[in-house]
């Protein structure tokens, strides 16, 4: 019976393709939009992901993320260093600052000032150069996306080449020397990310000289991190968060922008498309076959048999549509790898999309079953 159900399904090519297309479209929308959303959420955490040494991040209580921060007086650095359980504490400054290329191209970059002595907070993955060169006068390290993009060098004859060591930029009116190119996780905004030493950071951004954005803390081995964070809070009235807490805080700030609603609507659209297109076409296809289901009952088939046939048909179109949708989503993800576009596809997303498609298929099958279940052989007599 299963093979007959399959033949009856593919016998109506237009409807069969229509249902598969509906489920494919639903899967694609749900999986792809969710993957982009997760990619963006992941990027919002980039500061914590890329700077992995600290176990505690100390900040002003109003600071929510690198996009909404208030600097703290540098005097708190020594106070934090004196808290029991703290192995080391270093400053990290961060600001948005104008940057101009020799060809006159303007952009606003995220400028990081890392501790001069330890260089903690400097990029880990270097494409060219060394982080030690940040100590050179005017030394900066530029992220590779900007080096190849908005900050690329333009020769007087108009030809463009990636920024390289030895090139110069103008940051907030001061000369900066490129001493390295690094790879960092892209942020939510497509801005150049530039690293320098704290000493030079204060030159590029003079208003920040007595302040820092964060104090990065490494706790001693076996120290109770939440307890140390609590002590820092008590001693300084600053906010001290462990890595996960800071990530959660950034994510919550990010979600307040309404982005979840926007992507949620896209996913909802996918679900509606799945229900409407796939459900309706499958229902019509089943209606067209009602007399044949009645025939099957007339020649000895049972309702259970018909139920199995419809469930099998719904499962087949569901599996094909889902596989195609996931396949195209993954291909999309591979195609944009290495670009500035956000995409994150964890295995949980596979299950999430699969669960929604499963519900669509169940709905689709039930819609048809409730109609065909009562297909009576009587309707065949005298017609």
């Amino acid at each position, binding site marked *: 019976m299963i093979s*007959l159900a399959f*033949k009856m399904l593919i016998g109506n090519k237009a409807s069969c393709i229509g249902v598969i297309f509906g489920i494919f479209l639903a899967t694609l929308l749900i999986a792809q939009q969710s993957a982009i959303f997760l990619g963006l959420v992941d990027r919002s955490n980039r500061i914590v992901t890329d700077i992995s040494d600290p176990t505690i991040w100390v900040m002003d209580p109003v600071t929510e993320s690198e996009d909404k921060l208030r600097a703290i007086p540098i005097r708190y650095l020594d106070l934090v260093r004196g808290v029991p359980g703290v192995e080391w504490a270093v400053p990290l400054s961060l600001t948005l600052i104008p940057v101009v290329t020799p060809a006159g191209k303007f952009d606003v970059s995220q400028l990081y000032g890392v501790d001069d002595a330890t260089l903690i907070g400097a990029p880990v993955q270097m494409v060219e150069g060394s982080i030690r060169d940040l100590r050179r006068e005017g030394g900066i390290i530029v992220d590779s996306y900007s080096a190849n993009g908005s900050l690329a060098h333009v020769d007087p004859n108009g030809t463009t080449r990636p920024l390289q060591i030895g090139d110069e930029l103008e940051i907030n009116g001061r000369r900066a020397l490129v001493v390295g190119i690094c790879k960092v996780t892209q942020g939510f905004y497509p801005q150049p990310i530039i690293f320098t030493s704290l000493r030079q950071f204060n030159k590029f951004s003079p208003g920040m000289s007595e302040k820092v954005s964060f104090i990065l803390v490494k706790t001693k081995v076996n120290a109770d991190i939440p307890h140390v964070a609590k002590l820092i809070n008590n001693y300084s009235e600053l906010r001290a968060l462990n890595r996960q807490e800071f990530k959660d805080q950034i994510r919550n700030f990010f979600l307040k922008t309404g982005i979840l609603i926007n992507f949620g609507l896209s996913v909802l659209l996918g679900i509606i498309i799945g229900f409407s297109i796939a459900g309706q076409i499958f229902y019509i296809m089943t209606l067209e076959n009602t007399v044949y289901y009645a*025939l099957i009952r007339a020649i000895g088939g049972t309702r259970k048999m018909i139920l199995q046939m419809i469930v099998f048909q719904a499962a087949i179109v569901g599996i094909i549509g889902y596989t195609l949708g996931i396949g195209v989503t993954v291909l999309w993800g591979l195609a944009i790898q290495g670009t500035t576009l956000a995409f994150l596809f964890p295995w949980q997303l596979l299950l999430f999309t699969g669960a929604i498609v499963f519900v669509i298929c169940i709905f689709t099958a039930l819609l048809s079953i409730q109609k065909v279940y009562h297909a009576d052989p*009587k309707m*065949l*007599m*005298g017609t």
Partner: protein
Amino acid sequence: MTKSIAVACKNIKKSYGSDENRVDALKPTDLEIHTGELTLLVGPSGSGKTTLVSIIATILTPDEGDLTLLGHSMNNLTEVEKAKFRSQNIGIVFQSLFLIPSLTVAENVALPLIIEGMKENEALQKAHHLLDKIHLLHKAKFSPTNLSKGQQQRVAIARAMINESSIMICDEPTSSLDHVSGFEIMKFLQELAKNTTKAVLVVTHDPRIFSYADRIIAMSDGEITPEGLKNE
């Protein structure tokens, strides 16, 4: 060849609707149909032919009376039990044939066996054998939509025959055929009744085919007319 009673209806009655909308589609009816005979059930539209034949096919349950098929009482069977009995003992050729267009001719013929649980290959082999007998083996892999009306009718009859059922019911088998094809089909059914000891019951209002009948049962206003019974 010994003839036995294949269908026995005793006081069978069927009504539709209730109270003042009540229509007695079939008044209390007694009837016997024998194996090895081609029986015609004739009468004008609305005379109760379809109701009677639906009850005999166990598709419709009578309000009252006893129905015995091949010695088995149908009165207390569940829907599933009736379906099983049908699949093993009754072949039905519907007026509109209802050949499934997405299946091949052979698959359509094999359908009752597949429903009964036979392996598809085995069922198809039997279908090919039967199609060979009715000279349609060369069309086995075609879609039924590519066949002429007469060929489609023969395929539908083959589907009704494949489970070697003892009772065959044909609803207006010649209604959409020209007279040559119609006569061919009736000759085929006549031979089927004689050679296989099947009880073949044909519902018709086509007087051209009356000559093929071993017996004619005429119906009018929901009951078998005495004239009809006299035709035995």
